[in-house]
């Protein structure tokens, strides 16, 4: 399946673009997606934290991802 991933802040700068399309196995989990992205972009693994959001909610490690989900990478937030 093909996932479209929105990128923000330092994650956007590391990847060098505001979103990313990746081809991955059907039913891939949030944890699995992060592992794939760490391999492709090792600088992502050096962040203090990196979460996956699915449809505007933080995803648990084992959350399965679907093509129609709105997926985003969430580096450490620093609002306020």
């Amino acid at each position, binding site marked *: 399946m093909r996932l479209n991933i*929105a990128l*923000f*802040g*330092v994650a*956007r*700068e590391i990847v060098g673009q505001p979103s990313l399309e990746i081809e991955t196995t059907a039913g891939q989990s949030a944890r699995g997606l992060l592992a794939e992205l760490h391999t492709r972009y090792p600088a992502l693994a*050096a*962040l*203090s934290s990196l979460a996956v*959001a699915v449809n*505007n*909610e*933080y995803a648990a490690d084992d959350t399965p991802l679907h093509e129609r989900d*709105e997926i*985003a990478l*969430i*580096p*450490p*937030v*620093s*609002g*306020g």
Partner: protein
Amino acid sequence: MIHIDLTDQPIAVADALRSVEADGAGAINTFIGTVRNRSTGRAVVRLEYEAYDSMALHQLRKVAEQAVAQWPMLQKVTVIHRKGTLHIGDVAVVVAVSTPHRAESFAACQYIIDTLKQVVTIWKKEFYEDGDVWVAAHP
């Protein structure tokens, strides 16, 4: 009763305070976050806030709803966060709450700003004379 906003325009603080006025409120408590001129020993020139808008608005509302669940006496809650380029002294965030008595207004206001900083999808980049850093990005 809950008002949430994310804006690239200057925050109208007086309007935010007025928005939580309520006949049942004996206390209005506010937190106003402003841009400081120094960070970890370096002189800050400006900040840029980037937001994942849809998730930030959703999470801000959830934080406000959690506060109402924890302090059911809350009359009104307003949270407004700025995005875009900010300079020293600019208002970055306003939290305003009203309650019948003061103790709960302090507690609810602090809960909202503390939780906002942990979960709301907004990122701050600090610009110095000689570089820039995404705050909290690296250990």
